[in-house]
């Protein structure tokens, strides 16, 4: 008999794999690794802000929503700066510096608020945002992950070709009547929303690696788009499931195992090439 928490972890991993497996090739093709990094850092700022607000109003359930809103605000700001003619790296650099500074300041405020209130549950929550804790996922977390994930999956699926074309030749898309600005905005929001949805299970420290490496590995193994997406999905799913069972057997956090396994595969392929 599989323990319920393990079943929940497996279901969460399947959803995470579908989302990241699809997104990862796009991150690599469009060159969004730096944006992904900045986006996921803004999640930490959002989570800290959510914790402060959650403690103040006595509802820690708002953390994920605040993180989501902050992240989407950050990616929209980055996209807007890019639309004003700045390069992607410049836009990310400007916004990230504010986000990083605000996060550190936020931690200072959080500690002060925590000192004045009972915060036992929250200290666990902070750790799970950083390292991820798929075994602690609740039924309501899982429902949100599956529902939100399904919507994001559909959005990605229906716009995937447009994202590819925008990655290939944005001026071409614009020249032929496509709305590059809207496509990029939606893609950035998808990156942010997926991050917000899965950060508690994957963990902020490892999220970047899990979002980038499956696509990078798949692109090393194939030139065919369908195969790239297929390899990325299969790789993410198999590594996530394997990590859960290894973590269950060894009591090591699964996100750490996932990251190391992906790093080993990527490193081995790079050396082989």
């Amino acid at each position, binding site marked *: 008999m599989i323990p319920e928490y393990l079943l929940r972890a497996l279901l969460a991993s399947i959803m995470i794999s579908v989302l990241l497996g699809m997104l990862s090739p796009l991150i*690599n*093709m*469009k*060159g969004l690794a730096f944006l992904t990094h900045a986006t996921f850092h803004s999640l930490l700022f959002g989570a800290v802000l959510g914790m402060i607000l959650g403690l103040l109003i006595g509802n820690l359930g708002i953390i994920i929503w605040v993180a989501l809103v902050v992240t989407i605000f950050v990616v929209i700001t980055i996209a807007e700066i890019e639309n004003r003619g700045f390069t992607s790296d410049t836009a990310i650099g400007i916004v990230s510096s504010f986000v990083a500074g605000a996060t550190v300041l936020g931690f200072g405020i959080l500690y002060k608020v925590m000192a004045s209130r009972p915060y036992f549950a929250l200290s666990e929550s902070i750790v799970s945002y950083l390292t991820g804790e798929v075994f602690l996922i609740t039924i309501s977390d899982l429902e949100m992950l599956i529902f939100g994930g399904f919507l994001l999956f559909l959005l990605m*699926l*229906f*716009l*995937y*070709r*447009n994202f*590819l*074309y925008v*990655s*290939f*030749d944005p*001026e*071409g*898309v*614009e*020249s*032929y*009547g*496509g*709305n590059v600005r*809207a496509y990029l905005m939606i893609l950035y929001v998808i990156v942010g929303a997926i991050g917000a949805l899965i950060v508690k299970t994957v963990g902020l420290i490892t999220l970047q690696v899990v979002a980038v490496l499956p696509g990078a590995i798949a*692109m090393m193994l194939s*030139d*065919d*788009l369908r195969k*790239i997406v297929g390899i990325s999905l299969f790789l993410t799913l198999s590594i996530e499931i394997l990590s859960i069972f290894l973590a269950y057997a060894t009591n090591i956090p699964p996100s750490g195992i996932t990251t190391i396994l992906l790093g080993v595969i990527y490193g081995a392929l790079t050396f082989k090439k």
Partner: protein
Amino acid sequence: MEAVRAENVSIYYDGYTAVENLTFKLEEGETLLLLGPNGAGKTTLLRTLAGFHTEYIGKLIVFGKHPLEAKDLISYVPQSHYLNERVPLTALEVVAMGGIYKRGFVHFKIPNEILKSAEEVLEFVGLKHIKDKLFKELSGGQKQRVLLARALISNPKLLLLDEPLSALDPSARVEVANILSKIKNEKGITMIITTHDVNPLTEIGDKIMLLNKQLVAFGTPEEVLRDEIISRVYGPLSKAIKIGSKLYCIIGDVHIHRGERR
């Protein structure tokens, strides 16, 4: 009918004047070869006509409309090395890209009629047999022909080509020049082509513009390709030579920018 009219157009880029006080006129069906050294403002002019760049003063009219309103009539062909070849698209998918954006925002699948049109234009440029090959695996000449096919799928009235011959070997240049000639003769599309090497294109060029931040010369090849004119931009080593009925332009390594002229 008048295809393009520019009256006293000055184009600004990042606070600098990229093109100053330009006036010219191009009739429908004519081909304009746009020559000038690097930084002369050729690509900026092309991008302004395509509606990508809007920082200009003066009057710019494309088929009776403002460039932004004439986007449906214009196809822009960028330099192929600007494309992100990490995206594994086939030649057919690249061509289809030119046709799908007139049909809504979401494109889960390329419609069959667009695939059919894409095959037809690939056949026109002589590349139907490589439709399923990845774009990045094509030769330079083939890539340029695929981009021409992509530009043709939307049935444009004005083709803007940014250095279609650059980074191509001589045989690929002839290959692309032949397709451009075919487009001119069989489809009668107005074209503006920026180039550093005018020689493979002189046969299709009805007009030549020599640009060096401002208009140096504009007219027929015979009027513009003269030693005293080209040497003002390309230095004293540049020469125009006529062999039979064909004009050739020998351009030295020296580029004289406006302000450097003596």
